[in-house]
């Protein structure tokens, strides 16, 4: 069938306005090491932006400091490469007055769970509408191999030459333990299909959506995740109609599955506390937790007149009028 000229134009225009993957890539190419898991997270995120057709100017990526925190430089959106540990309060400030912006946070395990730990706990409680990706490579990458709070006990690093001294902190149970928790998921960088689905679920959840991604760091942790890459039984896929659906081809590989209802907080905590096999999927989701940004949003439109009126009302309380 042939199309009339105007119809073709119309379609072309439509195609024109469609953002492509390229449109979400900045003019800087990523400077991560070859094989670094951050690349997979970046690809999944660019795909999400493309699929959702997020307007670049209405999208902000906020990060702290670390290898993973270079992320915003590689997105053709607004980016905020902040200071170590403080990505979350920065993102909260952005979101507070700008509900129209899509806010994403990319943070490392040192950034989030060590120097930024206080902010992390409170950010869960604020439950502001943003998507947070914890790039967990179990080590400090940028500063060259020091123990992170999530490093496995015994890991030899530059600050623990005989092996990391303590049991690691579990970011999933920690997050699930904070009041107002509303979305927790875990993904792995080496299964891009699931990674994308999880980030997408997180994006569509209204509230503080926390996705921990186990991220390979070939530079400092070359074999750490090998057992999981080699043995599919060491991964527990969480499936549910309220969670993610597993494609038949994936199902063939990852047979270790559990039907987990993401509204079941107690079961989510149990699953999260098992370290082997590692769970992958949506652990918890509760759409009814109030968001601090909504709670604090006022219906009063802000105008100079409103300010003037309020100011004069306040002045009235403190004014001494001259005697007549």
């Amino acid at each position, binding site marked *: 069938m042939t199309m009339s000229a105007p119809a073709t134009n119309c379609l072309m225009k439509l195609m024109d306005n469609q953002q492509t993957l390229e449109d979400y890539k*900045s003019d*800087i190419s990523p400077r991560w090491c070859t094989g670094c898991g951050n690349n997979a997270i970046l690809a999944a995120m660019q795909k999400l932006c493309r699929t959702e057709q997020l307007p*670049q*100017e*209405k999208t*902000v*990526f*906020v990060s702290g*400091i670390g290898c993973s925190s270079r992320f*915003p*430089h590689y*997105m*053709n*959106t*607004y*980016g*905020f*490469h*902040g*200071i170590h540990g*403080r990505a979350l*309060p*920065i*993102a*909260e*400030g*952005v*979101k*507070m*007055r*700008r509900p*129209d*912006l899509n806010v994403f946070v990319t943070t490392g395990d040192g950034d989030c769970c060590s120097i930024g730990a*206080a*902010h992390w*706990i*409170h950010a869960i409680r604020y439950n502001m509408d943003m998507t947070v990706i914890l790039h967990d490579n179990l080590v400090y990458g940028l500063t060259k191999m020091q123990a992170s709070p999530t490093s496995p006990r015994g890991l030899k690093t530059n600050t623990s030459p005989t092996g990391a001294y303590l049991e690691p902190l579990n970011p999933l149970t920690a997050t699930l333990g904070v009041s107002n928790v509303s979305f927790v998921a875990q993904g792995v960088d080496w299964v891009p299909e699931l990674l994308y689905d999880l980030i997408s679920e997180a994006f569509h959840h209204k509230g503080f959506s926390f996705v921990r991604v186990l991220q390979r760091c070939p530079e400092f942790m070359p074999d750490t995740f090998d057992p999981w890459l080699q043995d599919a039984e060491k991964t527990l896929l969480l499936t549910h109609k309220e969670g993610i659906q597993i494609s038949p081809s994936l199902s063939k590989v990852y047979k270790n599955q559990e039907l987990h209802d993401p509204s079941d907080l107690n079961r989510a905590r149990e699953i999260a506390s098992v370290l082997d096999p590692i769970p992958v999927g949506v652990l918890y989701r509760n759409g009814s937790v109030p968001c601090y940004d909504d709670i*604090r949003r*006022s*219906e*009063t*439109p*802000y105008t*100079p*007149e*409103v*300010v*003037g009126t*309020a*100011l*004069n009302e*306040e*002045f009235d309380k*403190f*004014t*001494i*009028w*001259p*005697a007549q």
Partner: protein
Amino acid sequence: MESQLLDESRQRKQARRVPNKKRKGTSKPAKKGKGRSPSAKKSVVTLSEHVVEIISDSGEGAQRCGQSFGSIAARMGNGIWTVEIIPAEIRPPARSVAGASGNRIRVASGPVDNGGDEADLVVAFNEQVLLGRVRAKELKPGCTILMENMWRTDPDAGVAKSYAKAYEELTSAGYDVHEIPMEVECLKYVPDARRGKNMFALGMLCSIYSLDLQMARDQIAFVFAKKGAKVIEPNQELLDAGHAWAEANLSFKYEIPAEKAEVPQIVVNGNIALALGVLASGMEVCAMYPITPATSASHYLSSIFEKVGCVVHQAEDEIAACTFAIGSSYAGKCSVTITSGPGLSLKQEAIGFAVMAEIPMVVVDVQRGGPSTGQPTKVEQGDLLPACFGGHGDAPKVVMAPSSIQDCFYSMITARKIAETFHMVVVVLTDASLATSQQPFPRPQFNENWVAPPVDQSAVSENAMPYDWDARIGVAPRFTPGQPQGMHCLTGLAHDPSSHVAYDPEINEEGIRHRSQKLAAFQKTLKTPKVFGDEEGDLLVIGWGSTRGAIEEAVTRVRAEGGKVGSLHLSFLQPMAPGIKEILSRFTQVMTVENTWCDSLEEELVDESNRRYAGLALLLRARYLVDIDCWGEVKGQPIKPGSIARVIREKLK
């Protein structure tokens, strides 16, 4: 330009009055005694001013009494300056020397701009809190004392004994002590005299200073408006009782004639003025973490900000407060974070980031005694250097300091404008003294230009760069999320004009140069500050912040004695206004007076090579290469004009 707002606001203030009458001082009552000499006809002594204190254990309402007394005097047209007397603990043990809680009110015929010298008259609910004030040398010699006498007959022999002992000590020290049966009198009206004794005391003060009793009743109705008639009426009754008792039993009575103000005045403390200023400035987000003495500004702001659709965010700590403010400034209008010294230290890394990324932000530091937890409720000006240089690396920012309650209000409007015009951090230094003192100032007329314009969401022109620094003034555009084609990644790493991380050695220097340039450009908009007193002479005293009123009063006193003295007060500490060097050259000697530590050359081990100077002295010496001396105090109190006058006289010898 923006920075002139401060000067304008000062012009708006009524012309500073130089006292032309000689102070009458305390007049002793004709008859000394226990206040038991009812005089049918008391002679009313006219005064030009008096410093009155009312003190009690905390929780007994002396603060409310003092504030009300100040407000009534202000309503009558008197100039007032009130200072809160606050114990460091929330509930110090009853009857303790360190537990004095209350208010000091300087009442004068004309406007006053500082708390003055020692007290002329003190009302004390127990002798221990009074002894605390005596030991702190806060009473004038011969000061009139009105003291609750219930303790004399206290069932606890120890209490009775310490009261009797204190009475002896005070009378033999020459104070004019009057024992007042406040408890007994109050119990005639209320079952629990602890609640209400303050209003009885207020009644006495209204009688002593010939204040309008009806105005006092109205003030009580205003203060307790929320609580209703059940609370208002008994308090008014106690007020009347105190008034009647003083009329009948006290042998002295004063009058401080008011030079009535012609324009409406508002009476607030510096923190309230600051919060009103935040509202007026058009800032929409205040992120804070509680810290004395800054918190009350945020308390008050919380009560009004939501009404206009704005937010006070109590963050989990100061770092979060500051970064939250940065995030909201980045995505919208300039935000403010309010703190005190320890909080400023925690914010420094984030402040450096805002400087680097050129995000506007206003940081208020209500200074308190330091270092560390120091003296949380007490005044000090120790944060000048940390405010200018506290962060790491070269982080140029504006540092300014209001010097009156009125300034606290206008400084927020000015600071917001500077921050948004130059994409800079503006640090505003007030202190515990300004925070808690009250002084009337002309009611501001709201001006819509004070409020920030709406956030620009228009498309950025193609190929425009976020850090396209202006070669001359250093200012770059600012692209806010939402602006099409403005996408870039802002970073605290060294960056080039397109906000790409700079690996090139030249680019790092270029960025630093432009950020520095902005300060030079801003400095060109500043006016040379005016010299107070002699334009040239033997000594120039330089100050900043809350010490202004006291310094100028001291200068006035010494000039009246024939001294050739002037003073200069700096609103902008970084950068400093042009023309200062020329002013310095007109005086034989120059010194700063600051509420902070500086080594004295009298110390055995201190000499020119190791002397630690006060902050402003250090800055001025470095900039102007003039041998500038300094004097300071860290007593946790506002410096008194009398102390400064003594230092000036010494210096002129």
